[in-house]
């Protein structure tokens, strides 16, 4: 098993990781020492002060604007329209004091409200996350380490071109292109609390946004010079009871979009062009928080807020339940050929692996055949001796990302908030998926002093190796290239899988041996 003690010690404070070359991570004291390469994505600094977050509390503006002189029936109708049954009951219970409603109605409304509250609190005790407000829920289940406090909330690279979209604290989304200086800003009335972004594969323009009440799909014309596309370019996909949306996943063939909400036990399969959806409902779990589609399109990971996650198989949409012991599945990522899933569980600091027989779904396929998951890395807290004293590194895993060639695995580790010397850090592993799965330490990636990593993503098609994009909590977005020569595993093009040798059962045993050899 690979553990943090095998890693080279983290850099002393003030040093910044710049790039990897010749199997070593190179660092310097400031970002400016970075030797420019022939291709360079824009490095950005988005300060929190420059953004104006809307102070829109959910019902705060209502009392300020609506003058309460409407007739009772109008108000009731409005309450029914705005907030449904509970809103109507609230309205009746409140306005009965004015003596317009008969007293029995007030009593009835109060009783029904009490019953509703009791039922919902009972339901909430089964699934504690349901008691959170929708904003807290997004912050809780987002892949970003500090969703609520940092200026960048989500980031997504376009799967084919050198552009990426960032969602900012003020609910706007900017699309940055490496080749042009225009950065269109997307704003929409319904675009609130964006928690995830996803570009449609095999398409130049479509960008899906997971918003508080809906999924927005923007069509940003790549040849347009406009900096503020009109909101007519956005499609609104909404379904009652499916909000807030916290995760999105396009199928690698670009045909369908999945969306997940922690309050809805069904995940939605959207036919975006037709704006229609099919709910995939399974009881248990209390919702769906995180989705990740295998790059070969054959399987989907769906995490739930309780100690359970599912792996869906996409040819007949059946699923496998994977109960975990300690907590919910926080994050997960797939190997490029879709045969291996790495995931982490909240409350533990280890990476688990699940492997699947690579039968790219003949019809009537099954989700998988492995019986249990294997621990492949232990990232629990480890103390390093550095020149500036002892630092401890490690802890819970926030995000796992795997580069598209399957050679580098970046892990965002949350620091232990109770310890002052512990900080959140990115640990990078070298990985190999064939002939057998191997995990080797590469090093830690660090930023400027005082800046915690917040979001990490790999560039989907960096030619010279892998390119890790990191959003730091101080608003900086930097790109750290890993230069290496690929071992010659053909990268699967989207939409089909290359012939991959069938992993034999025997290799599982030897793999475990390998971990133990590495770990000792």
């Amino acid at each position: 098993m690979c553990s943090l003690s095998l890693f080279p010690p983290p850099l002393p404070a003030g040093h910044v990781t710049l790039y990897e070359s010749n199997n070593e991570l190179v660092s310097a004291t400031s970002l400016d020492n970075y030797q420019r390469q022939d291709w360079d994505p824009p490095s950005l600094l988005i300060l929190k002060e420059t953004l104006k977050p809307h102070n829109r509390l959910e019902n705060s503006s209502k009392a300020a604007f609506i003058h309460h002189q409407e007739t009772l029936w109008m108000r009731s109708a409005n309450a029914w329209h705005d907030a449904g049954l509970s809103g109507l009951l609230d309205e009746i219970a409140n306005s009965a004091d004015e003596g317009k409603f008969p007293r029995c109605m007030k009593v009835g409304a109060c009783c029904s409200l009490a019953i509703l509250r009791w039922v919902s609190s009972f339901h909430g005790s089964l699934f504690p996350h349901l008691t959170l407000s929708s904003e807290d829920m997004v912050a809780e289940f987002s892949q970003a380490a500090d969703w609520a406090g940092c200026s960048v909330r989500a980031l997504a690279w376009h799967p084919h071109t050198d552009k990426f979209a960032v969602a900012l604290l003020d609910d706007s989304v900017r699309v940055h292109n490496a080749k042009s200086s225009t950065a269109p800003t997307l704003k929409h009335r319904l675009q609130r609390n964006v928690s995830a972004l996803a570009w449609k594969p095999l398409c130049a323009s479509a960008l899906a946004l997971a918003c508080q009440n809906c999924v927005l799909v923007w069509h940003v014309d790549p040849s347009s010079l406009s900096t503020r596309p009109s909101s007519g370019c956005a499609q609104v996909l909404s379904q009652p009871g499916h909000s807030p949306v916290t995760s999105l996943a396009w199928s690698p063939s670009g045909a369908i979009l999945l969306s997940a909400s922690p309050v809805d036990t069904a995940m939605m399969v959207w036919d975006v062009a037709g704006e229609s959806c099919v709910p995939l409902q399974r009881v248990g779990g209390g919702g769906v928080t995180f989705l990740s589609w295998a790059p070969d399109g054959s399987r989907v990971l769906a995490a739930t807020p309780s100690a359970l996650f599912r792996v869906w198989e996409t040819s007949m949409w059946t699923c496998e339940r994977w109960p975990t012991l300690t907590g919910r599945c926080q994050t997960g990522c797939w190997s490029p050929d879709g045969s291996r899933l790495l995931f982490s569980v909240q409350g533990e600091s280890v990476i688990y692996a699940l492997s699947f027989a690579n039968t790219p779904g003949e019809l009537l396929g099954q989700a998988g055949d492995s019986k249990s998951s294997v621990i492949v890395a232990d990232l629990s807290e480890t103390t390093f001796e550095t020149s500036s004293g002892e630092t401890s590194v490690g802890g819970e895993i926030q995000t796992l990302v795997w580069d598209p060639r399957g050679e580098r695995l970046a892990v965002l580790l949350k620091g232990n908030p109770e310890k002052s010397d512990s900080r959140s850090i990115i640990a990078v592993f070298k990985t190999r998926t064939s002939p057998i799965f191997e995990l080797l330490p590469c090093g830690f990636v660090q930023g400027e002093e005082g800046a915690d990593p917040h979001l990490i993503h790999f560039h989907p098609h960096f030619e010279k190796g892998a390119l890790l994009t990191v959003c730091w909590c101080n608003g900086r977005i930097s790109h750290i290239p890993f230069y290496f020569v690929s071992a010659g595993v053909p990268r699967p093009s989207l939409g089909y899988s290359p012939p991959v040798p069938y992993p034999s059962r025997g290799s599982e045993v030897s793999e475990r041996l390998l971990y133990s050899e590495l770990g000792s």
Partner: protein
Amino acid sequence: MLSLGHDHWFIRKVVFWRAAASIAWSVLLLPASTAIFVLLSRISVLHPIEWITGSLNILCGSYVIFSIVLQCLVVLIIGFFILEFYTAVPSIPCTRIALIGKVLHPQQFIHSLVHAVMGMLVSWCAAVMIGGRFQFLTTPCIAEESAVASSMCLNEYHLFFLLAGAFMGYSYSLLYVVGNMNYVSFPSIQQYKYLRFKGTLPLVIKHSAVQALYSVRNYCITYFFLGYIPRAWICTTMNLQKDRALHSLDTLTGLLDFSLLYHLWISGTFLLVTWYMTWLLFRIYTSEVYCFPVQSSFSEDAHQCLPKVLSSKQPLILKYLALQDFALLSQNSPSRRQEVFSLSQPGGHPHNWSALSGECLTILNDLTQKLIAYQEAVSSNGRIKPQSLGSDKRPSSSGSSATSLIEEPMSWQTPRVSMGPKTPGSVFLRSSVASPFTPDLGSPFGSPAMKRLTGTLDPSSPWHGSVQSPHVMRRGPKLWTSSLGAETPLNGSPQSGPAPVPSPVAGAQKPSLVSLWIQNRQEQVKNVLAKRVLIMYLFNKLPEASSQALFAESQAHIWALEGLSHLVAASYTEDRFGVVQTTLPDILGTMLTLQEAVDKHFKLPHASSKPARTLSSLVDTSYKTLRFALRASLKTAIYRITTTFGEHLNAVQVSVEHRKRLQQFLEYKE
């Protein structure tokens, strides 16, 4: 339709069995829904034990058993009608008068009549099962005033129930035709039948309950005004008396009876749930994937193989299922893809691939033709072109294939005259739009398809003129493509160049003086009629509907695009003999031409660029958004090919214009 293609092997062996299985399941589900209905109909919150034991007693009674048997019969008949009326291509009326015609069609009349009778039967069963005051049509009179004390009186509640059933059956039938519920849509993701049914069941119940509520409201209003007619009629024919002690039901006090309305609503929901469930099961069974073999080792099974089946025109459901299977095999079945790429054993010809790709290209070319014809009709604003231009044009366009490119914009754009506000003269003509507009004069079509079109699409051709129905329009281009489709399987590659145009036949039709005179008269009559507002209203084309009708078959096109693009992408690594490479220029050419035509279509002034918001309900409206789905999947298909092949596409022979377009795709700028 009733006799169509029943002797086809596929209908006999697959569709019938699927229909039978779905009907059998709906029959099996009847006792369960009946039990729930009985429980709900005698609900009493205050005496729960009494309620449950009473209901259980009733359930074992002879009335309920008899009702279930009767309802099995009803479900069988409903299932039979669903089977007879289903279609894979929705028929979309383009004008209001066509919609009225559809509703008043004799076939539809039979449908409504039978459904009304079935509704009456079901509500009789419901009335009998509820029991109490609803049970019998006649009751002994309570009122003492009549001289004959023992005479029977009419039980108006029972009559009210029976008529409500007929009303609901009729409105079900009406909504069935207006909402195109006979259209079997195919799901975007594959799921097991049980899971699909389970997932849709809550929607069925909700939809039925809401629908029943509306029906009850409408029925009560109808009965309030017209209820005395059937009552009087029944009274006189059966020699019954009206009970004067009770409120009659066409008064407000009679109607405001909560228990009556509740029972009416419950039985309406029950009726709709059983029928919708039958309908849902039928759709689920019919749209299930059927796996056709790609090739067979026995020659007697050859007609059941995918290449043969795909090229068959009838029955339509067979073609759709074949295309669905084709799209799925290309996506996730490497072994079956290998069969497609394989060579025939003696001879070494790629028969499978050329038949499959040829058929797909034919389908796609058909659509391109249709789109161009539509655009042309719209851009000339429905006006008939001067005859001379069309007939002069013909020899040049059919004779030479390459040179006509330059002159062809003239031929179809010159007749356009700037239209004043009194364009309604065109309302009777094919695909005119409601508002006058100037067509965009941008780039002329540089496609070979356009050249052919100017040849074939002359105003004297039989399908030009006052054609209202989309069916005729759809048939039009097939006149031309049938020649292409016939020769492609033999050649191995469909020609990208223009097919020979039947020019001598078309050229022979010289307009005579008489026909010109008649045409003028027609114009005048139309002009006079067009001034009447009502006629305008009825005959005006609905632009949204004609756009929908144009793309009504697009599910087939989407599958063809998906299948082709996935196969081409897979051929990059899996095609050992290079069979795909020979057709790659044709595939790219067809897709890019179609892309151009689709882009043009969405630039037409009336075309909406986004689907209208629809609330998700049981009634499938996916046919309304097919054109958006087609646009998206066309783009995705081209991107799939360009992403896979990348720079290698520069070695493929395509025209200059298509090369430019391809470059755009390669740079991700579309």
